[in-house]
């Protein structure tokens, strides 16, 4: 914080020992954010609040909402929006971008291998039972080819920044990651509410995500040799991400369908239109594997399409993401991703994992048992049910109980230190205060991978909270990647 001292709104702001996205750290200032800091510093709190309220009201009116259904009523909620942006320098972004591209490439190679030769399992790099015994492993995918050999076409990588100012991957979302609509909507909102804040700064655009996604789906269709008749398959209006499905369908100009709008005849997929049945060749599906096809997976699913897997296996329809990608974003597999990257790409991970101890391995278990009160212990795969243990917050009985569970089934757990997430100045009831943030960039992969410059910055609005999820008091911020 040596380059400049706030004299206005940001006077008295202190990141409380954490790395700050706007101020950096004492030993590592963030000169690229200086103009933004100065401009925010020049605003009054009342003005900032007024603009923030207007922005949130607009989100509500536009219906940029997720709906909470209770037995009696439905409540539309917005993902709270904080007007102070999170700003990444071109160099920081370059690292993230390369890291995400690398990671997605490795995950795709891994999935391809698992459903074909299984070299990585035979070589003992990843324990076979961890993958083959995983609920998200889909034997239906054995030997099946997918376009370009890429299974994860849309990937969201959850990244945090530690106290050292470096980025770490916390989680991969390789199934049906959501949140990208907020990235675009947040930018629109900033542009309307804060044109003066953005002026002449040179922020990379995020508005072409829909075109990129449409381009990807057309590219995937090209392999089928048919017209790219693309649809977006949604669970429907009751799904909490429904707004995003609407958003993406509109951005791409493709029909937003539900399972009941589709049917399979002679292993081909059709949609029911006013003009009768019309063919569908590519489905961007926002429904999990389990619900895709009651014939193959959850037989009680009302959301899916009977026979879809038959059409898929016959090569008559492309699904994005492919079926069976859940093996790549399991918490247990996560721990092995640095080794997976090394195995397939012969590279070190550009974005390291958060330090992770695999309790299924002896040293990992011993370390975890010795340091339980400092660690977060997470259940892996579908083995859980006991939930997460947050060591520093747990009482003596809980710790003892967890030790017993760990010893009984060590392979069901991984452990990590509590990550000191970076903070960002945020508008709160008591003025501008630091709040913890993470980052979810979105990668789109067909023949090659493109990463939307920015991503979803989620912010834990409760003081001191490290939980950024929208269901637990999380909000979001616009994320600026500087040119």
């Amino acid at each position, binding site marked *: 914080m040596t380059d400049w001292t706030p004299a206005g709104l940001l006077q008295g702001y202190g990141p409380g020992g954490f790395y700050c996205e706007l101020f950096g750290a004492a030993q590592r200032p963030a000169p690229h954010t200086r103009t933004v800091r100065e401009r925010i510093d020049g605003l009054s709190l009342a003005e900032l609040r007024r603009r923030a309220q207007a922005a949130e009201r607009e989100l509500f*009116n536009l219906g940029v909402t997720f709906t909470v259904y209770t037995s009696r009523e439905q409540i539309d909620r917005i993902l709270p929006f904080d007007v102070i942006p999170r700003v990444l320098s071109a160099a920081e972004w370059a690292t993230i971008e390369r890291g995400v591209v690398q990671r997605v490439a490795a995950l795709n190679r891994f999935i391809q291998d698992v459903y074909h030769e299984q070299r990585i399992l035979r070589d003992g790099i990843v324990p076979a039972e961890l993958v083959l015994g995983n609920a998200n492993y889909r034997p239906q995918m054995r030997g099946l080819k997918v376009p370009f050999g890429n299974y994860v076409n849309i990937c969201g990588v959850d990244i945090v920044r530690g106290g050292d100012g470096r980025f770490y991957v916390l989680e991969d979302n390789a199934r049906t990651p959501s949140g990208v609509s907020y990235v675009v909507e947040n930018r629109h909102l900033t542009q309307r509410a804060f044109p003066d804040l953005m002026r002449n700064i040179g922020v990379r655009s995020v508005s072409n995500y829909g075109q990129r996604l449409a381009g990807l789906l057309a590219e995937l269709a090209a392999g089928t040799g048919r017209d790219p008749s693309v649809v977006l398959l949604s669970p429907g*209006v009751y799904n909490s991400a429904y707004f995003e499905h*609407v958003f993406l369908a509109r951005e791409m100009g493709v*029909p*937003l369908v539900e399972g009941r709008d589709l049917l399979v005849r002679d292993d081909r997929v059709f949609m*029911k*239109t*006013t003009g009768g049945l019309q063919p569908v060749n590519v489905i961007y599906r926002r429904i999990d594997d389990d619900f895709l096809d009651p014939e193959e997976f959850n037989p009680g699913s009302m959301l899916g399409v009977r026979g879809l897997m038959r059409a898929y296996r016959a090569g008559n329809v492309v699904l994005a993401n492919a079926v069976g990608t859940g093996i790549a974003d399991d918490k247990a597999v996560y721990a092995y991703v640095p080794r997976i990257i090394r195995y397939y790409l012969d590279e070190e991970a550009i974005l390291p994992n958060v330090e992770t101890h695999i309790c299924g391995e002896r040293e990992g278990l011993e370390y975890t048992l010795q340091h339980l009160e400092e660690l977060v212990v997470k259940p892996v795969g579908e083995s859980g049910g006991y939930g997460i243990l947050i060591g520093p917050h747990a009482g003596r009985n809980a710790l003892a109980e967890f030790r017993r569970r760990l010893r009984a089934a060590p392979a069901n757990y991984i452990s990590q230190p509590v990550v000191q997430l970076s903070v960002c100045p945020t508008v709160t009831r008591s003025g501008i205060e630091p709040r913890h943030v993470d980052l979810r960039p979105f990668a789109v992969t067909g023949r090659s991978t493109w990463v939307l410059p920015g991503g979803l910055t989620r912010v834990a609005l409760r003081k001191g909270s490290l939980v950024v999820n929208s269901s637990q008091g999380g909000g979001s911020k616009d994320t600026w990647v500087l040119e």
Partner: protein
Amino acid sequence: MNNLLARHAECIFWLARQVERSNSIARILDVNESFSRNTRGEHDWESVLRLYGDEQNFKATGRRPTADAVIHFYILDDHNANSVLSSIRMARENARALRPLISTEMWVQLNGFHNRLSRLRKADLRVENLNRLCSYIKESCQTHSGITAETLYRDESWYFHQVGRAIERADQTTRLVDVKYQVLLPQPSDVGSPIDEAQWNTVLRSAAGFHAFRRVNPQSMSPSKVINFMVFDRRFPRSVAASVLVANEHLHELRLKHGHTAKRSASNLLRRLAATLAEETADDLIARGLHEALDGIQAELGAVTDALGREFFLLTETDDAPQPPAESAA
């Protein structure tokens, strides 16, 4: 361009009907309240229940058919699928399903309309506030129509919206005319009396047709003239005949432009109804019994809706039939 999803076609057809229905309910409550102001003593609100065939449904509320109870039943009652709140809630759910098709402005307006309705309290519904509330509902429904006309892309969805709105309006106008019948004809001695004329005026005003009626009939006011105007006058946009023509024209254009020429049954039914309306007069209806004649028109409109369901919404494929969208019983 692909054809519209059958489910979306059905959703927008019903969305238009639900908004138009709310528009008419506001008009009917408003006109009935005006009757009650012009009548001495306790006014009969049961006529509105009879009009919609809701006597049994209302009984289930356990309330007497007082002004307050009937007004609540038709504006805020969750359990009444025809209440304005229920209709607009369903319209909003349909709009939510249609969001990839409709304009953001359409969604924002309908969403705001719904949110305001759902915040209404008992006091807002008191008879002395009813006129203001009904005006708000009417205006909101008209705003929906205006925004739709100004922003909705002219693909199939536009035609289904227009057909839905026109069919609902034709149906509702028959009911509006019937209010008068229900309320007054039981007492033939009133026919032609001053109070009778005032009430016919009210019917015309509720449909925003009073001044137009006066221009067509500057000298006189008679039941058959009002019925001629409300049912048969093609130049009056809320008349049954005008609405049937609008539905017919839009369905015709939809079939031509979007490759549906082989689908004839809904279109034939509408054309036949339009032809009948072109030939008949108020005196024919009165001779047949006005109430029965209006019921007959409602039944024919119902047959058109069923035919649309079979031809366009794919409602007959039993195994794979789309589940109906939020839809209320007409």
